[in-house]
């Protein structure tokens, strides 16, 4: 089965690309990034601030199962409705440096669209640390990974 979300991360590079095809018109996909209530719902976070304009800022807040509060923020550099958002992203209170994100929204047809997230990190080492974060947090990976990668290769 073709995986809907793909990660392209070449080794030794300080960037990666996340791509995803959605069964949604591009305007709805874009709205999911600019409507604070919707962002809160799918990102599983509180949206403290979301200013959808050049030089606008955003700040999210999540509470982990132990009750610790984590905040994330960034600045929006460029925003073109249904086309692109260029922004920074930083995790507050962590040594992780700021990262630069280029989000591109493309319409495939009336009902389908594609998102390309190009993320640039301070260095290749920081990128790899970020990649390993979900693994370190112990996301439940009960399924057979070999089967999955073999499926992906098909």
């Amino acid at each position: 089965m073709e995986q809907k979300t793909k990660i392209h991360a070449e080794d030794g590079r300080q960037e990666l690309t996340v791509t995803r095809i959605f069964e949604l018109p591009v305007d709805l996909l874009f709205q999911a990034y600019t409507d604070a209530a919707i962002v809160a719902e799918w990102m599983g976070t509180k949206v403290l601030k979301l200013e959808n304009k050049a030089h606008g800022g955003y700040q999210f807040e999540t509470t982990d199962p132990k009750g610790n509060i984590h905040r994330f923020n960034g600045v929006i550099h460029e925003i073109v409705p249904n086309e692109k958002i260029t922004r920074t992203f930083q995790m507050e209170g962590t040594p992780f440096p700021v990262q630069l994100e280029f989000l591109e929204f493309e319409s495939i047809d009336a009902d389908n669209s594609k998102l390309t997230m190009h993320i640039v990190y301070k260095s290749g080492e920081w990128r790899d640390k970020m990649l390993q974060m979900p693994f370190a947090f112990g996301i439940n990976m009960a399924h057979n990974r070999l089967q999955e990668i073999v499926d992906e290769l098909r």
Partner: protein
Amino acid sequence: MELRRDVFQAIADPTRRAILTLVALQAMTPTAIAENFDSSRQTISKHIQILTECELLRQEQTGREIYYYINAKKMKEVADFIEPFRKMWDDRFNKLESIMKQRKSKNA
């Protein structure tokens, strides 16, 4: 990290990914692998050599024939590195998609 670099380069090539897929299904001789491709036997041998060098394939001699097997442990290592990150985004995007689909049908 040196070996890992090789692994990612190895799986970046579509022919090598196709070879891994074939061998994942059953152990194969180099001749049997080459029969699945239009490329020359020599080209396929080179790809097999790269996959073996970065331990994605391992070889075993059976009589006069050499068979190639997939190295599940190494494959798992490659998958482990990226997969949880991919899964995290996939879960989020699935949620985004279902939320927006609901809104779409409500407004329709």
